[in-house]
């Protein structure tokens, strides 16, 4: 068909705009529009003629959800609150744990075994940030004979200037024994002897700068790690 023929273009344009051109014919016509300026012109003319008819329709306000969906579709607003597994914090925490595990493993692997392999204890943060300390973990590596221990923070720990970290050996039952203050920023060599004897876990508490005045933890326990037997 010769779609540039004015009469044909006019008839098809009229039926298309009036809405009576239907089904496959409508789709065919829409496909033809791109290639035939005469058809486009006809449609434009008919739209100008007939569209004002719709002005007599009483307006109907759409519900707000329609606009919300439009905003979502065109990227004005995020699709929805991210699920827990999409939260960055979750992956950060997991990454932290993975790092700790890796470092612990690295210590095990990298330290040449003397007579016996040292014992490595990972102390994990017990709570969310408290007392001005950011959560982090410590690694304590203990010589096999239990005479020496080195503690090391895995990530930088910030402690208020008027506070210090104190390390404790926690027996299966009874009161913890102080192993002394440890550094929040670097390695601390703890020489207390017999660290391993009667010790089920290691703990770090927040104390005054000179250490616990009572011989028992007075501040919150920030990190705990169990010794596996």
């Amino acid at each position: 068909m010769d779609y540039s023929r004015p009469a044909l273009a006019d008839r098809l344009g009229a039926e298309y705009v009036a809405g009576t051109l239907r089904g496959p014919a409508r789709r065919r016509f829409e496909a033809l529009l791109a290639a035939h300026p005469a058809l486009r012109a006809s449609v434009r003319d008919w739209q100008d003629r007939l569209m004002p008819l719709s002005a007599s329709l009483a307006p109907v306000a759409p519900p707000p959800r329609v606009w919300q969906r439009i905003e979502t579709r065109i990227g004005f607003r995020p699709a929805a609150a991210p699920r827990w597994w999409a939260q960055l914090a979750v992956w950060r925490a997991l990454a932290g744990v993975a790092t700790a595990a890796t470092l612990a493993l690295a210590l095990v692997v990298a330290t040449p075994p003397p007579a016996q392999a040292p014992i490595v204890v990972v102390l994990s943060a017990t709570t969310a940030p408290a007392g001005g300390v950011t959560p982090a973990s410590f690694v304590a590596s203990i010589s096999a004979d239990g005479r020496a221990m080195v503690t090391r923070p895995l990530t930088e720990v910030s402690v208020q200037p008027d506070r210090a970290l104190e390390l404790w050996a926690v027996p299966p039952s009874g009161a913890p024994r102080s192993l002394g203050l440890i550094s929040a920023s670097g390695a601390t060599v703890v020489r207390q002897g017999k660290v391993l004897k009667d010790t089920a876990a290691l703990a770090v508490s927040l104390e005054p700068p000179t250490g616990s005045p009572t011989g028992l933890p007075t501040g919150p326990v920030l990190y705990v790690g169990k010794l596996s037997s």
Partner: protein
Amino acid sequence: MATVPSDWSERSKELSVLLARSGLGDRQAFARLYERSSAHLFAVVLRINRDRAQAEDVLQEVYVNVWRAAKSFDAAQSQPLTWLTSIARNRAIDSLRRRQAEPQTQPANLNDDEDRNVYDDVPDDNAPTPLEMLGRASDARALARCMDGLTPPQRQSVALAFYDGLSHAEVAEHMREPLGTVKSWVRRALLALKACLDGAVARERSAGSP
């Protein structure tokens, strides 16, 4: 209250600016465009597709489309309200595709009362009949005079097709007239409207020039 065609150009002017800004990616302008035009377009869509959930989906598609196509809108070629309404109408008619069971190839439908009820003469929601709306739309300008020039069956057939999105076959079913007769009514009505409107424009132009 229904808007009369004399407002058409006025409203279009305002929308023209908003549409141009939307084309440049201005989200506020687009939000305002929606605010100013969505109730009209929803009425257009809802009149053609009376399923509210589907009509909402159609409206959503229309505006997503408008946002993407706003750049290509040419204010010199068409009026914004005409452009927007055309997009809404086309989408609404497309959404009927499943409902259109090709009635002309299924004569049984002509005797199917259930089917006919959808377009019953008694409107289910007190909506004005197409003829009443034609009357309202004709309140102003040349369109009124031109509509008056049509015969009553011509007017009704055009109104059913335009407002309710009925196909020829559905108009025939509704008016209980043969398909061929209805086709020729619609055809002649459109031709008469064209001749009349184009004549009115020509008269306006010659009256406007010295």
